[in-house]
């Protein structure tokens, strides 16, 4: 901050330095001395997509076990050492990837690299820790179901929309699988997926690239490369008709999830679909909010989501029915809005609006060292090149109103959707 000048120090693609170790471990580095801190984000290409029935939820459980002891730093020592040195960490697991995040004063980077290298090279799976950690993830699953109806509804819709592909089961796993994971499953998982050549490391903050490189060589270079993990071969067959599911849970008013099957991040339609999602639900002036929540008061909340993925995924609509409103009326009103876009398209002003929003979002993402690392890593993993992150504002700019109308027509149709309704009494 002291160094801030009057010209924008805004990050550019060329500000990202990159190098790859002999074992295939790729590093991306952003030097940023605005605060005396740095971070290290490690992206592994493994998630619930790599599981099968019997070991569902294992990727996420493994994420937990990564904190439970390795050769040099035994059980509890990873967190204790990190926190003693002023560092903090977390991790998250998705369908496609598992990400480990460390935030620390740059002055203790050496210890952070040592901690990460220790667990990646020689994790030691302690059977007592497996049992106590099993209780932790079962509690994690339970508390998510306890505190929101969305967990149950979205899991059920996803299971209907994907009948063969591993996106069928929830990231957290099935309860019975959670109770039965074996130590051998964990050990095999570690060997197969936690290889230097299956990861991307991003470091942002108050460190010189040369220093990051020195530490990377020192701690990670000796970890052996592994054969590529087995490919996920299952391709979800085309959907041939609408699917519907009803769920019962004590709620005040019905919850609705409508999911359309759409392509993965690398598909040319990705950018148009992202903008379509924003047009539908970003801000009070968006189509869904303005009409369903504000004007007609059919819903108390409505939103959409479309996230980057390796394989074809879902474009989701979520809505909570207002009191005294029949959920069918809400569902039909959602379809009417979709049909209007399909037949009449969108206005140039709407398009410009979401492009403007995307640009401000981009600024927000690169304002912090954590935003930089998370986004650079996400683009590198899902789009194959971190430079795509810097091209994103331009890619969004290229999308036309016709593109939006075309993707709405291509994907948002009845035979391509799965509808889930959660309410207190499904017989009514």
């Amino acid at each position, binding site marked *: 901050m002291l160094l801030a000048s009057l010209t*924008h120090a805004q990050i550019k693609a060329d500000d990202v330095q990159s190098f790859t170790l002999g074992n295939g471990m790729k590093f991306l580095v952003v030097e940023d001395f605005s605060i005396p*801190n740095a971070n290290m984000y490690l992206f592994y290409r493994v998630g619930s997509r790599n599981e099968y029935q019997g070991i569902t939820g294992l990727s996420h459980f493994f994420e937990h076990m990564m904190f439970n002891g390795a050769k040099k730093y035994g059980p509890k020592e990873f967190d204790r050492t990190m926190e003693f040195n002023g560092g903090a960490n977390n991790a998250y697991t998705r369908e496609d990837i598992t990400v480990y995040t460390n935030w620390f004063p740059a002055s203790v980077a050496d210890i952070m690299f040592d901690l990460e290298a220790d667990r990646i090279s020689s994790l030691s799976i302690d059977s007592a820790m497996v049992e106590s950690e099993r209780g932790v993830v079962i509690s*994690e699953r339970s508390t998510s179901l306890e505190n929101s109806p969305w967990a149950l509804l979205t899991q059920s819709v996803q299971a209907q929309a994907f009948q063969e592909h591993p996106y069928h089961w929830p990231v957290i796993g099935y309860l019975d699988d959670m109770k039965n994971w074996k130590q051998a499953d964990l050990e095999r998982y570690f060997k197969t997926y936690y290889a230097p050549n299956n990861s991307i490391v991003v470091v942002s903050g108050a460190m010189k690239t040369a220093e990051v490189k020195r530490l990377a060589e020192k701690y990670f270079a000796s970890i052996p490369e592994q054969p590529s993990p087995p490919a996920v071969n299952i391709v979800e067959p085309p959907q041939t008709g609408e699917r519907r599911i009803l769920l019962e849970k004590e709620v005040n008013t019905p919850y609705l999830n409508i999911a359309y099957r759409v392509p993965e991040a690398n598909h040319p339609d990705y950018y148009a679909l992202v903008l379509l999602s924003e047009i539908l639900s970003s801000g009070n002036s968006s189509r869904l909010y303005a009409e369903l929540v504000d004007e007609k008061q059919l819903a108390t909340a409505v939103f959409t989501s479309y996230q980057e993925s390796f394989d074809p995924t879902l474009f989701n609509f979520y809505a909570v029915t207002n009191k005294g409103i029949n959920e069918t009326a809400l569902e039909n009103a959602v379809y009417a809005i979709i049909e209007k876009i399909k037949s009449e398209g969108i206005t140039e002003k709407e398009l410009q609006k979401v492009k403007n929003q995307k640009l401000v979002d981009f600024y927000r993402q690169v304002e912090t060292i954590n935003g930089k690392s998370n986004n650079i890593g996400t683009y590198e993993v899902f789009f194959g090149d971190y430079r795509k992150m810097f091209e994103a504002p331009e890619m969004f700019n290229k999308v036309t109103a016709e593109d939006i109308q075309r993707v709405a027509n291509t994907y948002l149709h009845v035979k391509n959707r799965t509808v889930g309704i959660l309410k207190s009494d499904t017989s009514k």
Partner: protein
Amino acid sequence: MKFMKAIYLCLFVSCMLLVSGISAQDFKLPAYQQFTLKNGLKVFLVEQHEVPTISVSVIMPAGAIYDGEKAGLASLTATALKHGTKNFPKALLDEELDFIGASVNTYASKESAGLSATFAAKDRNKVLNIIQELLTAPVFDTAEFSKEKSRTLVQLEQAKESPRAVIGSYFDKFLYGDHVYGNIISGTVNTVSGLSTKDLQNFYAINYIPNGSAIAIAGDFNSKEMKDAVTKLFSGWKKGNQSGTDMAKQTISKPVNNRVLLINKDDAKETTFYIGAPGISRNNPDYVSVEVINTLFGGRFTSMLNDELRVNTGLTYGARSGFSPLKNGGSFSISTFTAKETTEQAIDKALEVLQALHQKGVDETSLTSAKNYVKGQFPPRYETSSQLASLMTQMFWYNFDESFINNFQKNVDGLTVTKAKEIIATYFPKDKLQFVMVGRSADIKKLVEKYGPVTEVEITGEPKKAF
């Protein structure tokens, strides 16, 4: 996820925001300017040029403590600022802000009301103009309010589907009794039902005043130009007079014995609970030391609580503790959740850990660790324009300045093991604990009777005025 920081994140972050100051090595807060307009509005300006955006934070003495009998009034008044002004009726306002990707949020907390905004630097004139109108000339449109109110009523019912969404309000009510710090920010179904735009107008007229308020602007601008712009925009905001007694200054009665509030949720599979006691006010001279000890006790992953309830026993996904300081008092709470079958085990463990804090205290190593952690995690809290703007309004609200900020590291470093013992004995409760639980009464009522006399209520019901 490895750790759900979200449960306590807000609490802890806001605490940290208040602590503020300088931590690791060469970390310095950027230079800022402050001045006061003739109407009493305090202004802070911080230039930040990393990205071409600007963030605004406004704080006003219009929080839920002024609700009186009308719980939810402060919150809905703040929300209704965005129902539009004469020049910007709601639909136009939404459209204008959305079109440029600007976010402008208005809200009420316990003591204050606030506005926070982030937008592209090039749109600064337009957005500042809108902010000025929202704060000084809202129209409180009846039709818009009627929609907002009916939506709020449904949302209040929906919140009862989630133990985590309601337990905090019950805890405050239980702990503070009829003191205004027990006021429920969101209101209740009964109180919100009775609100009208007239109530909002009255509340606005009394409490949304420049004297006693502050605006902080951080981001990509030139301070001299911004000073002129802010002076021009906000000088016309009429000074007010918030008359009446300051209810927040009334004595907070202290609990005299252990008590249990059991909130029955028939379909609960977990027991979600807080164990709490009175805490400290924000201006307590030991504030920083208390935060360091809390870090060690329940404020981070390796804390005593999380280590025992999660890592050693697998009873829960996460266990935490925190202080929530306000101007004239505050609360302390341990919070976690567990399967209903392990309710007793988890509560007993939490109490054991609290007892261990008192009996064993802390040693040199654990204290050093907590101090390093607090200092090391400090700089990222002041990295963005929006964090800096919010820090400035907190400085204003709780009346601390650079001298306090500059002593932060010294205060952290100065905490010795001996002093730590005094801090524990003085500020961490030993007895007269307040237990608040959301769970299935039929399964847990008998066993929780051992913690103290039990008051039982239904989650579907209306929270009482005081327990």
